[in-house]
């Protein structure tokens, strides 16, 4: 179980994440939603250890992760929002690197890397440099690298971005399969339909603060709204999108 307690991040006087608290349970997929600039990625970077929180703490299985960050990282699989990969390496070499850095022995690294690449449809491209990969291929390499060491806690930050229909479907099933194996999963996405389908629990952040933290069903009944899209729009107080879209079209046509 992963507990986020009062997590805060300030850059100088600007508070980007403001006392965020929520809990993620094993076998559960938690959707983490919010508009651009709401503090999602900053929260995720703090969870992944890439940013130090200004305040608050994160407990993994009851232990503060800062007490033993190394033990926590061993349990962490992370697919970042940006597909930052060493483009000089081939797909296979990248997975071998990730596996070795995780301390996996050589035969296991090679076997798992090749199997994951094959299952993710990258077998033919494994010897090509990552610089030649499409966005979806890079994304699949990142997913494979996050799974290689069988982590207990997984963060997928916009992991389906760039995936084609078949791979997006595969990814959806993968999330369920991982949850069924008791993994704790944090899933960040802007595709609300997908979040509604895969996540038992959603956390909505807006301007750095948590505005909702509950199951999708309970949110629906509490707010008397039919779907997550409506709930989200209400929670983050977005303007009338239809009207805004019409305004954009009008500006486009203006002489």
């Amino acid at each position: 179980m992963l507990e986020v307690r009062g997590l805060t991040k300030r850059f100088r006087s600007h508070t980007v994440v403001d006392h965020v608290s929520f809990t993620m349970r094993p076998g559960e997929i938690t959707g983490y939603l919010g508009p651009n600039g709401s503090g999602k990625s900053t929260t995720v970077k703090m969870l992944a250890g890439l940013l130090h929180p200004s305040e608050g703490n994160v407990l993994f299985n009851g232990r503060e992760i800062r007490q033993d960050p190394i033990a926590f990282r061993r349990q962490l699989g992370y697919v970042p929002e940006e597909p930052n990969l060493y483009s000089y390496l081939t797909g296979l070499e990248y997975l071998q690197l990730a596996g070795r850095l995780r301390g996996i022995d050589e035969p296991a690294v090679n076997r798992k890397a090749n199997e994951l690449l094959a299952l993710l449809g990258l077998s033919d491209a494994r010897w090509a440099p990552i610089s030649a990969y499409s966005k979806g291929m890079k994304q699949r390499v990142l997913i494979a690298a996050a799974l290689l060491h069988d982590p207990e806690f997984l963060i997928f930050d916009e992991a389906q971005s760039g995936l084609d229909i078949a791979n997006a479907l595969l990814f959806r099933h993968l999330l369920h399969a991982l949850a069924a194996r008791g993994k704790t999963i944090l899933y960040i996405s802007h595709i609300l339909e997908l979040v509604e389908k895969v996540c038992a629990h959603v956390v909505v952040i807006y301007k750095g603060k948590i505005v909702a933290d509950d199951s999708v069903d309970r949110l629906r009944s509490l707010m008397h709204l039919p779907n997550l899209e409506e709930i989200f729009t209400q929670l983050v107080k977005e303007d009338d999108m239809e009207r805004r879209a019409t305004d954009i079209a009008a500006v486009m046509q203006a002489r």
Partner: protein
Amino acid sequence: MTTPFRELVKLFRARFLESDALAEGSGYETSLAQILGLLVTPGILVALWLLPRYMGYSMSGRAGLEWDLRSDRLFFAAYSFTVTGFATIFEWDTLFPERRDFLILTPFPIRMRDLFGAKLLSLLTFVGIIAAAVNAGSVVLIPLLSTLIPGTRNAGLLRLLLMHTTSCAAAAAFAFFAVAAFQGVLISLLSPRLFRRLSPYIQMTGMSLMVLSLLLFPIYSQLRIIATSHPEALWYFPPYWFAAIPELFTGRTDPLFAALAWFGFRALGCAILLFAIAWAAGFVRHYRRTLESEDVGRSGRENNRSWFDWILRSPEERGVYYFSGAILARSTRHRLFLATYLSAGISFGVLVMVVVKNGVIGLSPEGIRAFPILVTFFAISGLRAGFQFPAELNSNWVFRLAESGWGSAARDATRKRALVSGLVVPLVCFVPLELFRWGIAAGLLHIAFQAAAGALLIEALFWRFDKVPFTCSYFPGKVNLAILAVVYLYGFTSYSFTLSDIEASLEHNPVKSAGYLGGAAIALTLLWRRKPKDHSVVFEAGEPQIRALNLN
């Protein structure tokens, strides 16, 4: 008004200074200003260094003065040729638009001739600025200084200015057009894939030759000796041709140098013509074929295990070792950086090896002995410096995320990479030289001695290197270049000459040799077992003053 053409010129111009090593947010203008500042300085310094000598000439002329002046002119022609050539080769990948440019720009309504013209203009502007900076100091100061000399004063300041400018500009233009034409020819003849494969090697060789051509100046500037003993050599090195151009303006033309000057003009004309044909033809072909080509991967071994695995004890060590190897093998910028170091080492080595005695050019035994030691010093210290420059810094998160107290594994892997790439590879290349020059017994002793000394040097240079190569952010501003240069100069001269003296003293003394090698083995064993207190890996060179938030 901003036109698409201007925007394209701006875009292509900025691409010349794109680099992994540039700090985030540092602009094109800042980087260019820093580079230009560095290029202007040597011309001014050399001109000022010549001032007392030229003042001496003004008071009393002396015999052989003309040869001294020819050597001085040769320096400026060679400097202009070398730096412009080096810059052109360094920008090899951006001389033609890249695949990325075509992929991005093709959907826009841009005419091919605009693309061609913008690239050409940005290229000529960039090279023009470099050549102007390289020669800015000397084209003003040298003609002024030349008016101090009674023999040349009569030519008048304007003519002196014209002859020096023509000489330096022609040398720079030839360097640029020759390199660009060569690339045009290759692009026209080779497949895009083969061209991409060959490019790094061409760049490494070309840059090494350019550095060599500057550092070997003390040898090839012995003009009087070369012109009398090996006059044919003057036709093979372009700076000789362009340094001879001022002879055409002085009225006291030596037939040999006049012929060299005209040869230089003809060579420049040929280079421009070849550039025009090959570049125009290559551009269209490059555009079409680059878009059509796919970057397909090579096939590889199913199992990545290699014979190096026996020296790599843990998965983390293997990870860092193979990662640094892949970057060294594939990152063009890092390869070029190391090529520059290596060529500096080879140049200094040649410099100490070649001696001119009684008008005859020969080889010094001490120099031959010091040569491998010097080259390995530069190879190892080049790796030490190269490891600091990040490759795709944004991607280092995979190391930061996976780091779990394997600092000592990273440390060992880095030293092993330096040992294999910086010491074993150069020494293997030197085995034939050592065996041929010194015989089997002495040659093998030399190799063993150099291996031990190199391994100890690696321990000294990497004593506080607790990073994963190519993953740490680097702030060049923190380095005091002047102090570094002095330390470096002192370091490599004392290292190579002291060691070559020790090596000579060991040759006929088996007991001393055994003692030295045994002592080195014990020291290395102790050093390899050293466990530094802090086992964590450093990824930040220091906390930057301003951080980009990158919030979303």
